[in-house]
C-alpha cells in the first residue's frame, strides 16, 4: 500500500525535523513494516521535458516517425509511433535507463533499422491517466531539460507499506489511519475527522425522492447508505485530486470515480457510484446460481448463490464490495448518480473475490472487516469534496441508511499488575493510559491497579478483543527495543530425551562415515507415471486434492521410488555411489494420533523409514547392501545383531522374488532389500545395477529399546578347534537353511562362517559349493581332535540325508 506524505499532512502536522527516514523507521518499529519510500523526483528519475525539433517519416514503417528531440543536454533521435507528434511540441521524454511507473525500462534500441534513444511518453505510460491516444503535450511553461517531476510540481514522498503486515488492521488501509499512528508515535496532534466534513451539508427532505434500499441477507451487509446526486457532469478531475491519486499509484479516470477512490484511500471506506438513470431501487441479495454479470473490467463473471450482489430488483448492478457492473457504471454521459457507502461482511467478500480470482482495492479493504461507522463519515466526505470538485452538483435525495448493527462500544478490563507480569517489566500507569488514549481507546481508572478500556469502533471489528491485544498496543508504542531482556528463571528439570531423534543421528553418521553414503531429503510425494514404471500398485495411495503437479500427486508409501529417481540424477558418475534417507511414509489406513479435539477420529497411519540405495556394477551391489545391513545391525546390537536374510514372499514390483529378501534381526522382521529388476532398469532407464533396502525405523527403535545393552562375556577358557569344510549341494538350497542346520547340529559348534561360494568346473550345472569355517569349543574342557572328527562325520551324514550334500 502506498501512502503519500503530503496527504498525511492534511491530518497531522509533521515538524520539519522529522524526516521521511524517521517516519519509515518508527512506523516499522511501532506499527507496520515500511518497505521503502520514494520521492516523486525519484519516481520520475530520467524523465525530462524535451522539445521536438524535427519529425520525419520512418523509411521502413508507415506508422512510425523519426523524431529529433532537444533535452537541453543533448539532441536525441527517437522513433515514435504517436500520431500527434509535431515539431515545436514540449513533451515528456523518458531517457535511456528510466524505469516508468508501469515497470517498463527504457533501453537504447533499433526499431526497423533506425536508432531510438529514449521514448516520448503518453499519459498512461507515466501513470498519470487513461489517455493513450497520443503523446502527452506539455504546457508552454515547460523548460526542456527539466525533470518531469519538477514540471508536475510533484514534490511528494511516497511510502510503501508491506501489505502482509497490515492484514489484521483494516484501520490502517488509509491515510487517516496511518496519520493516527504517526500522531501516536511522534506525539503529534491528530485533526479530528469531523474537520474534513462540510458542516453545512443538507440532504433533500423530499421524502418522495427517498431511495428504496432493501437488504435481503442481514448477515451479509451490516449497513448500506445511499444518496442520489443530480447535476453531475463527468469530466477530468482537478490537478490536486489527480496528483494525490497518482502519488499512490492510482490512475485518474474521471471526477466521480476519482473522488470515490480518493475517499477510499483517505479514510479506508470503499464507495461506489452507480449511474442513477435507470435505477429506482436497490436490493442487496445473494446471486442466483449461474447469474451472469459483466464487470467494469469488461469480463463476464458467472456467480453462485454464495455471492453477494447489488441489484435493481431484477438485474445485478455490481458484485458487492468487489467491482461494479458495466451496465450501471459511470459513463461520460452520466448526469445523475447513486452513491453507495456500505459495510459488507468480510467473509462473503473474501470468498467471492477468492473464487472469481478478482481482487480490487475495495475487496482488500472489505475482507479485513471494516468499521460500520465509517460508512457515514466517508459518504459525507465525498459530498464535501464534491462541492469543491463540481460545485453545481446537487444532493437530490434524503440519506438512506439501512443498518443491522449495534453501535455500542466494547470494553476490556485491564489489570496493570497482569500487564507488568506479561511484559516482564513495569510500564508506568501513566504511560499505559497515555499509549491507549493516543490510539483512540477510551481509558478510565476503576481501581488502584485496574483500567476500564473502551475499544474505538475502528479497532473493534476483529482486531482488538482481549486484554492481550491491549498489552500489545501498550508494548508496541513503548517500543519492543526498549524492553530489557532476561532469560527465563525457572526450576531445573531434566528434559525427556527424544530417543528416536538420537537414534536417527547415530544411524545417519554411521552410514555416512562408515559406508560413504550420502544423505538425501526427497519429496513426500510421488506420481502415477513414476510408480507405473516401477510396477508399483498405486491404487491405495493417498492423493492430494490439489497437487502442484502430476509428479507430486500422491503421498509416498515407500522411500524407494524417489531413491531410484536420485540414481537417475547421478548415474553419469563412474564410481559406485549410494544414498540414504530417513523419512515418513503415509498409508491409507487408520493410525494412532488424534485428528480433532475430541480425539475420536484418527489421522492416517504414518511411519518413519530408513531407505538405502547402492549403485554399482552387477550383483555385487546386493552383497554390498547386505554388508551395510550387517554393519548397521552389529553397530546397534553388537554381535547378537547379525541379520538374517530370508526369502520374501511379497516382493514389490520393482524387484523379483528371486532378487529380494526380508531382513530379520533378533528374530524380528525390520525390512527388506532387493535388486532393481531388469524390467525396472529398462523402464526407468537405469544404466547401473541398483540395490535398495527399506527398513521400518520405528521398529528398529523399539528393538533398540527392548534389547538394552550387550553384557560383557568372560573370554573363553578352553581353546577352540577350527575346521574348514566345503560342501557340494544343489543350487536351489538356500544358504540360510543349510547354515541353520549346521549351526544347530551340536552345541559344541560355536561358529559357522561362510567364506567361499563356488560353482563351475568340476561341479555339475545344478550344483554349488559352500565353504565354511567351523569352530568347536566346549565351555568346560579342552576338546580333542578325535571327538571332533567323529562329530564332523555325523554332521556329514546328517547333511547328506537332509540336503543330499557331500564334501567337496
Amino acid at each position, binding site marked *: 500500500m502506498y501512502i503519500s506524505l503530503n496527504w498525511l499532512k492534511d491530518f497531522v502536522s509533521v515538524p520539519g525535523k522529522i524526516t521521511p527516514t524517521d517516519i519509515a523507521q518508527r512506523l516499522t*518499529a511501532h506499527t507496520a513494516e515500511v518497505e521503502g519510500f520514494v520521492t516523486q523526483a525519484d519516481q520520475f528519475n530520467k524523465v525530462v521535458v524535451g522539445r521536438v525539433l524535427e519529425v520525419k517519416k520512418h523509411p521502413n514503417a508507415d506508422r512510425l516517425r523519426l523524431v529529433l528531440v532537444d533535452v537541453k543536454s543533448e539532441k536525441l533521435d527517437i522513433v515514435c509511433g504517436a500520431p500527434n507528434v509535431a515539431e515545436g511540441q514540449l513533451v515528456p521524454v523518458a531517457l535511456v535507463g528510466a524505469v516508468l511507473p508501469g515497470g517498463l525500462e527504457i533501453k537504447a534500441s533499433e526499431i526497423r533499422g533506425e536508432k531510438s534513444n529514449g521514448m516520448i511518453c503518453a499519459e498512461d505510460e507515466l501513470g498519470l491517466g487513461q489517455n493513450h491516444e497520443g503523446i502527452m503535450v506539455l504546457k508552454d511553461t515547460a523548460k526542456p531539460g527539466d525533470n518531469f517531476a519538477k514540471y508536475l510540481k510533484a514534490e511528494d514522498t511516497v511510502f510503501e507499506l508491506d501489505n502482509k503486515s497490515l492484514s489484521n488492521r483494516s484501520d490502517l488501509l488509509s491515510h487517516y489511519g496511518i496519520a493516527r499512528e504517526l500522531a501516536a508515535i511522534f506525539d503529534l496532534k491528530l485533526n479530528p475527522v469531523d474537520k474534513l466534513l462540510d458542516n453545512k451539508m443538507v440532504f433533500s427532505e423530499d421524502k418522495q425522492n427517498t431511495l428504496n434500499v432493501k437488504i435481503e441477507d442481514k448477515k451479509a451487509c451490516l449497513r448500506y447508505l445511499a444518496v442520489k446526486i443530480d447535476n453531475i457532469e463527468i469530466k477530468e478531475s482537478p490537478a490536486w485530486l489527480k496528483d494525490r491519486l497518482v502519488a499512490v499509484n492510482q490512475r485518474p479516470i474521471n471526477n466521480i470515480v476519482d473522488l470515490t477512490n480518493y475517499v477510499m484511500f483517505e479514510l479506508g471506506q470503499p464507495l461506489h457510484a452507480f449511474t442513477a438513470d435507470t435505477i429506482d431501487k436497490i436490493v442487496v441479495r445473494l446471486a442466483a446460481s449461474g447469474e451472469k454479470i459483466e464487470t467494469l473490467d469488461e469480463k463476464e463473471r458467472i456467480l453462485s448463490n454464495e455471492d453477494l450482489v447489488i441489484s435493481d430488483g431484477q438485474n445485478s448492478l455490481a458484485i458487492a464490495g468487489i467491482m461494479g457492473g458495466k451496465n450501471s457504471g459511470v459513463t461520460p454521459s452520466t448526469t445523475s448518480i447513486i452513491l453507495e457507502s456500505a459495510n459488507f461482511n468480510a467473509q462473503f467478500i473474501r470468498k467471492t473475490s477468492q473464487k472469481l480470482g478478482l481482487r480490487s482495492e475495495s475487496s482488500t479493504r472489505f475482507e479485513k472487516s471494516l468499521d460500520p461507522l465509517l460508512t457515514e463519515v466517508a459518504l459525507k466526505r465525498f459530498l464535501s469534496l464534491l462541492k469543491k470538485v463540481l460545485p453545481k452538483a446537487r444532493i437530490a435525495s434524503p440519506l438512506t441508511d439501512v443498518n443491522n448493527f449495534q453501535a455500542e462500544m466494547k470494553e476490556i478490563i485491564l489489570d496493570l499488575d497482569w500487564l507488568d507480569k*506479561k511484559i516482564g517489566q513495569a510500564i508506568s500507569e501513566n504511560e499505559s493510559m497515555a499509549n491507549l488514549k493516543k490510539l483512540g481507546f477510551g481509558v478510565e481508572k476503576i481501581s488502584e491497579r485496574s483500567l476500564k478500556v473502551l475499544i474505538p469502533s475502528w479497532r473493534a471489528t476483529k482486531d482488538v478483543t482481549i486484554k492481550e491485544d491491549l498489552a*500489545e498496543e501498550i508494548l508496541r508504542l513503548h517500543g519492543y527495543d526498549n524492553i530489557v531482556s532476561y532469560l527465563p528463571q525457572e526450576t531445573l528439570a531434566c*528434559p525427556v530425551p527424544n530417543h*528416536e531423534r538420537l537414534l536417527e543421528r547415530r544411524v545417519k553418521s554411521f552410514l555416512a562415515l562408515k559406508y560413504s553414503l550420502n544423505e538425501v531429503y526427497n519429496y*513426500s510425494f510421488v506420481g502415477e507415471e513414476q510408480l507405473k514404471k516401477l510396477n508399483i500398485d498405486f491404487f491405495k495411495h493417498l492423493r492430494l486434492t490439489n497437487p*502442484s503437479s502430476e509428479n507430486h500427486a500422491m503421498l509416498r508409501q515407500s522411500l524407494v521410488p524417489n531413491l531410484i529417481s536420485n540414481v537417475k540424477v547421478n548415474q553419469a558418475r563412474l564410481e559406485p555411489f*549410494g544414498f540414504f534417507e530417513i523419512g515418513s511414509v503415509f498409508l491409507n489406513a487408520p493410525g494412532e*494420533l488424534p485428528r480433532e479435539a475430541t480425539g475420536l477420529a484418527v489421522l492416517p497411519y504414518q511411519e518413519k523409514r530408513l531407505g538405502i540405495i547402492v549403485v554399482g556394477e552387477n550383483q555385487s551391489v546386493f552383497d554390498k547392501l547386505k554388508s551395510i545391513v550387517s554393519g548397521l545391525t552389529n553397530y546397534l546390537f553388537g554381535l547378537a545383531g547379525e541379520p538374517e536374510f530370508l526369502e520374501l514372499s511379497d516382493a514389490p514390483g520393482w524387484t523379483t522374488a528371486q532378487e529380494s529378501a526380508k531382513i530379520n534381526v533378533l528374530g524380528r522382521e525390520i525390512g527388506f532389500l532387493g535388486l532393481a529388476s531388469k524390467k525396472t532398469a529398462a523402464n526407468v532407464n537405469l544404466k547401473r545395477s541398483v540395490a535398495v533396502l527399506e527398513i521400518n525405523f520405528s521398529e528398529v527403535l523399539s528393538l533398540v529399546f527392548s534389547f538394552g545393552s550387550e553384557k560383557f562375556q568372560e573370554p573363553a577358557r578352553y581353546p577352540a578347534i577350527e575346521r574348514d569344510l566345503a560342501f557340494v549341494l544343489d543350487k536351489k538350497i538356500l544358504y540360510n537353511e543349510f547354515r541353520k542346520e549346521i549351526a544347530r547340529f551340536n552345541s559344541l559348534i560355536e561358529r559357522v562362517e561362510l567364506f567361499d561360494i563356488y560353482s563351475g568346473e568340476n561341479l555339475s550345472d545344478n550344483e554349488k559349493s559352500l565353504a565354511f569355517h567351523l569352530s568347536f569349543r566346549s565351555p568346560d574342557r579342552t576338546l580333542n581332535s578325535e571327538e571332533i572328527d567323529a562329530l564332523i562325520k555325523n554332521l556329514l551324514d546328517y547333511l547328506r540325508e537332509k540336503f543330499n550334500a557331500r564334501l567337496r
Partner: protein
Amino acid sequence: MEKFLCPVIRRVIKAKKYMKTKIEKLKEEVLRELSEVKNSEHLKELELRYLSRKGEFSEIMHSLKDLSLELKKDLGLLANSAKVEIQEKFREIRMKFEKDSVKSSVLDVTLPGHKNTYGHLHPLTMVQNELEDLFTSLGFIIGDGPELESDYYNFTALNVDPLHPARDMQDTFYIDLPNNSGQYDLLMRTQTSPVQIRLMKKYGAPLKAIIPGRCFRNEATDARHEHTFYQFEGLMIGENINFANLKSLLELVGKKLFGENTKLRMRPKFFPFVEPGNNGEYTCFLCQGKGCRVCKHSGWLEIVGAGLVHPDVLRAGGIDPEKYSGLAFGFGLSRLVMLKYNITDVRLLNSGDLRFLEQF
C-alpha cells in the same frame, strides 16, 4: 725382575700379558677391518664375526672364566672396555650407512595420502543438529509430530480463523480423503506449530520444547519457492514467562546462528497464534549490518516470527491461560541453511544431486 718371582706368579704374569696382547690385537684388528668396511652387508658380517654370541670377543670373555679372581677382574675390565669401544665404532659406521641409504632412496614427502571417501550428511541435518544441541543443553525437549495433519491441529487449534488465506486450497495441500461429514479436513501441515498443541496435550505445563520439521505449502517451485521446506520452532510455557524472556531467547538464537556480535530488533507483526506478535531481525552476518546484497542493503535480516502464545492456543492445548503464559518463536530452517551456505536455489535441497550433497 720376573725371574726373581716364584714360578706360579711368573706364570700368572705371563698369562696376563698374553691375554692382554690378545685383547689389544683383536681390538686393533677389528678397528682396522672397520676402517675398510664398504657397505652394511660387510658390516653385518664383521659384527657377526666379532660381537655375536659365538664371536671372537665372546670367546675371549669365555676364556677368562678359568682365571683367578684377580686376573678375571683386571682382564675382564680390559676386554669389556675394548668391546664397548668397538661396539661404539660399529654403531657409528652403521649410522653412517643408514644415513647414506636414506639419502639415496628418494621419498617424496609432498605426495598425497591415500584418498578415503566418506559420505555426507544433508546440510539441513547439520544445521538442525546444531540447533537441537543448543536447546537440549538448555533443557528443551525435541518434539515430533505428524507431517500429515488435520485441519483442527494445523489451523483451528492455532486460532487461525476459518477464512484465513492460509486455509485456501491454493496455499495448502489437502488430502483427498473427506471425513464423515464430507469435508476435506486432512492436509499436509503448513507449519510445525500443530505440534505445539500435541505437546501441550501430552506434557501439560510447564513445557519447554523445540519442534524441527518438514512443512508444505502449495506453491509453484522456482529458485526461491519450494512446496516442501523445513521449519524450526520453540515453545516455552510456565507461570512467569514474559515478553522480556522471549526477547532474551531470540537474542540467544541470533548469537548462536550468526555469531556473538549479532544484534536483534523486534517489530510488531501479526500471527494468529500469538499476542503480542512480532518478527525478529538480526544484523546481517555477511556485512555486519553495513548493508549488502543478502540483506537488500538494510543491514538486517528478517529471520524469526515470535510472540507470546495466544490464550486461545493455550486453551486448545488444555492449559489455563490465567495461570500460565507461553512464548513461541519459529523460523525457516531451509532459509537459514541457504543463508549459511550461500545456496541460491532452494530446489537443490531436495534434488538428490551428488554435486550438491558432497559439498557438505
